[in-house]
């Protein structure tokens, strides 16, 4: 059987929902059918649980369908003809009693086509809670477009007043519920930058509360961690607030090389001392050396081992830099997931040209022979289906569903060591 589709990626509808569900005290009301609700509710709750128990009977209101997140208007064919206003008013009344700090109504793709007047309905129904509506998140748009549509609207609606800048502070842009270990990645960056005297004020849609987000105008700089989900917001805030932004030229801080670059560039922009954080990276490198020297001595690896990556450009580029430039591994296939990457895909291609490997770009990761795969769970299972026996490291969603309880991250020195640990445990029999 041919593989028609090895893996799918969420689109702008999911992006918008995750942006709001990633705010600790905000809620999405999906004006749409339950077919669009169940998935988003399940993923929001597993990525960022906000209720202590999972008990469907605690969410017995019809709009929740037993799930704690993303209540919906459960539209059916009648509602597409006669409009959704009756159900929407009923659902909003139920949701308004649950104490959310912000309610955002998002139309499903189908509901977006019928043009109900959501703003009027919200004004008529919700009195004491801030709200707004997103009439359309687009059709088949990128995840990042939907994510930033929602974040940008949220920032507009919050109408944050001008605030004095804290010259050693930043916001982090583009981290989302759709990112593997997103919460710990965020924590890692807070800790690393804190070592350099830089305070992270907020990361929109990545667990912060509305109160935290309202402080974000104090930041001296917006750091675009993932341009695919953050660059548009950075541009908007430059225009609206006059806040400068930085797009680190090696993308996300994955691997020692790009972590170092990330720290140095942020510190340079804020005139801060990068050394304390760089020292942490050096400590991790020294620890890595201890293990790599023995591993290399015994096995001659990881140099020369083939690797494949399926990820967005902002993750694929730093990973390739590190795997080939630090560990001496050889690319076999690299699939870049679409998105506005701020030129990082081009830089990745340029880099691959310097190691004479441009032909690996766009090769299907699941099917190309390799020795270790960095990808999402679907790509990994598809590689097994076609008989590949490569080691696999999950760096994206959907996951294989391993329940991560202890802290793991992809970013920073600890993230680099976590990746290295998996690489070294996956290549012994190459």
């Amino acid at each position: 059987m041919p593989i028609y589709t090895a893996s799918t990626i969420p689109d702008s509808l999911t992006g918008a929902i995750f942006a709001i569900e990633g705010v600790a005290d905000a809620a999405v009301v999906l004006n749409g059918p339950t077919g669009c609700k169940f998935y988003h509710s399940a993923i929001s709750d597993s990525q960022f649980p906000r209720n202590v128990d999972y008990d469907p009977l605690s969410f017995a209101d019809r709009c929740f369908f037993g799930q704690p997140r993303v209540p919906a208007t459960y539209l059916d064919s009648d509602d597409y003809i006669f409009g959704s206003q009756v159900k929407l008013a009923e659902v909003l009344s139920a949701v308004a009693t649950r104490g959310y700090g912000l309610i955002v109504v998002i139309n499903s793709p189908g509901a977006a086509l019928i043009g109900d007047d959501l703003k009027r309905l919200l004004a008529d129904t919700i009195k004491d809670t801030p709200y707004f509506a997103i009439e359309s998140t687009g059709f088949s748009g990128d995840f990042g477009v939907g994510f930033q549509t929602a974040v940008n609207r949220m920032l507009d609606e919050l109408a944050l007043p001008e605030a004095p800048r804290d010259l050693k502070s930043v916001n982090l842009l583009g981290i989302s519920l759709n990112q593997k270990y997103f919460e710990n990645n965020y924590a890692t960056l807070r800790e690393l930058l804190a070592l350099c005297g830089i305070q992270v004020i907020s990361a929109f849609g990545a667990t912060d509360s509305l109160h935290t987000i309202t402080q974000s105008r104090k930041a001296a700089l917006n750091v675009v961690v993932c341009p695919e989900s953050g660059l548009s917001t950075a541009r908007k805030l430059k225009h609206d607030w006059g806040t400068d932004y930085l797009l680190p030229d090696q993308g996300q801080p994955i691997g020692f090389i790009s972590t170092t670059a990330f720290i140095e560039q942020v510190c340079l922009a804020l005139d801060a001392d990068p050394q304390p954080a760089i020292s942490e990276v050096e400590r991790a490198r020294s620890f890595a050396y201890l293990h790599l020297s023995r591993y290399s001595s015994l096995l001659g690896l990881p140099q020369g081992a083939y690797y494949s990556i399926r990820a967005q450009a902002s993750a694929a580029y730093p990973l390739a830099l590190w795997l080939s430039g630090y560990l001496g591994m050889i690319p076999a296939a690299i699939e870049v997931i679409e998105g506005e990457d701020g030129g990082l895909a081009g830089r990745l291609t340029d880099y691959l040209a310097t190691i004479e490997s441009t032909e690996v770009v766009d090769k299907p990761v699941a099917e190309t022979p390799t020795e270790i795969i960095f990808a999402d769970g679907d790509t990994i299972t598809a590689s097994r289906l076609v008989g590949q026996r490569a080691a696999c490291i999950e760096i994206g969603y959907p996951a294989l569903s391993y329940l991560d309880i202890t802290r793991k991250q992809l970013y920073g020195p600890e993230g680099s060591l976590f990746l290295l640990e998996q690489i070294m445990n996956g290549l012994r029999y190459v």
Partner: protein
Amino acid sequence: MGKSLQIAIYGKGGIGKSTIAANISAALAANGRRVLQVGCDPKHDSTRLLLRGQTPPTVLDYIRDMPPDNYSIDDIIMTGEFGVDCAEAGGPEPGIGCAGRGILTTFDLLDKLGVTDRGYDVIIYDVLGDVVCGGFAVPIRNEYSDRVYIITSGEFMSLYAANNILRGLANYETDRPRVGGIIFNARGGDYEEQRVFRFAEAVCLPIVETIPRDDTFALSERAFRCLVAEFSDSDLAKHFYSLAETVLTGLLYSARPVTDEELELKILSTPIAGNGKVFESDLRLGIEAVKDIASSASDSDPTSTASNTAAPTPLLSKSLVYKEPLHGCAFNGAISITTQLTDCVSIAHGPKSCAHIAFQAITSISRRLLLERGIVLPMQTAPPIVSTDMSESVMIFGGASMLEQRIRDLQKVGPPAIFVISTCPSGIIGEDILATAALSTSTTQVIPIATDGNLTGDHLQGVFLGYQHIAEALIDRDVTPEPDLVNIVAEKTIAESTTGNLNFIKEILERLDLRLNCRFICESSYEQIRGFMRAPINLLANGDYMGTALRDYLEQSFGAHFFEKAFPIGFADSSEWVRNLAALYNRPEAAELIIEDYAKRYQAMVNRLRPQLSGRRLMVITFNHDIDWILSTAIDVGMEIGFVGILNYSQDHGFNTEYSDQIGELNTNLDYTAMTRLDDVMRIQPDVLIGNYLPSGSLKVPVTDTIQLCPDVGFLAGIQMSARWAEMLRLNIGEGWRQDADLYRKYHS
């Protein structure tokens, strides 16, 4: 009975098309034709003059209020002047909802209710103004209109709308011309006649009738009658009798709209000299007229092109029947079935999110199984789904050509079948996916399934649609049955227990010397489904609502024979199942050997568990509607069944038990809440509480356990579950973590 001649009459709103349509219907009926007029305007007044001012219940109100299994065509049709039958689509209030979607829904229901099989000679669709979207274009689709007439006056907007209608028609025109011509409804403005004739010349269409402006129309309307009835001998009435003959037999032409520039510059803005009527005589010289196939075959009898293929009775999900909120969408349900065909591919015609959600639902178990057991499930790992990724522009301009290209690309790969499944957005904008069936080739069948997301129903409804379309398209009714072959029907395609359950059934089949022919439908090939009828006996995997409905359908439509009971759960059920199946093949000894083997194991476990469980009180709160496998085991180990609470479940209904006299309290209250559960638990004081989802902190019960929604089948299903309870009770072990909810609140809230 012959096929009805279907005529769509289009015109800008307010142009008088309902009046003209009603008079044409009346004239046809007065001449002995059997006529149905369907009003396709949300304001639902098309048939008012035929019904002397009355209005039939609108189709859309009817659909909203009536459970689908009670639908009857007689409820939505009223009979008016000259015996003309009348129906009105209806629609939303202005500015709300989607009237175009309403037209789609109306036509769908009329189809399902077999309106074309009621012996009408002519069906006239009176359609609102402009072709504003796919919904309003439904009446000009090939399957709905044999002929299209356009009513216009000489007013700018009326001609503009007429040209747009031709554009819409051109988009749907395939193998035959279908435009009958223009009906000129005069309003009497300056140069009106010339403008209309110039337009007719530009678009190469004849003016088949000119209706003069006349107060007689107002007089008949005041009497709530159409003119043909109220002033039957008038000259005006003769126009309609003439028109009635024309619409039956007149020539047909291709739709040739002009550009907006041509319309505005050459027809509407240019000063006109002379008498426009000179164009009329020349008109037919330059146009390619083709005699309508149907009317040339039978000039006076449009009903003679008979086609009498009966569609299968559609299965209806529980949510549709009971008008409950829909759980999931039919698109997702259908694709969960079609992707079980190992060598076929399914196209999700919709935005990326639809395919993504469907893909993730199917692959979730595969990812977990690979992680935990290293098992690769072929059909759940890379389900053969291709998305058309409908974009914003496709939503506006339609995606037919993109879909066709996708199908042609996939045909190069060579699957025996391609399923095309529609989503809410493609359904709302009126994408005509049924037309893709015409793209079938000798090697690849194209099978459209118009689920339209959840517009046709919930997940279960989509499952039914998937099963029925596959059955109708693939199953070969002429294969020769072979003894000792069985099929398995209605396995759950997305459930963790499916593989284990199959293995158990395979073990039993092997010991009874029976062979598996086909799994309908789980990891099956195109050819295996074709050979479905090779097995004389079918084994139903699940006896729930879905399973029994599918069984009934296969029995009725294919004459399939089913073994009496679904896959058994628990010892008592399994013993009976194996014994009866073996009896069917006259192999009782083999059955007794199987039962004896399992009986030893079961009894040993019962003896071991009794000391711990005897006298303990069991409480069950569950969505599962078949729990006798739990209750029988509990009784066998001596437990007291203190309470059973059954929750409403979209996938099943009809809770029943053989052990009602041994249940302390039975609660089938569908509105069970967290508070009533807490009250019940405090009152019942169970030793063991089981359910599908149970909260951690608030319920103080020695043992809580979870029931799978799709339980394991077999002799040991119940006893294995109770073994866990016994161990927990015997060891008196604790779950200290359950006390820590407050810690979570302290540190993380």
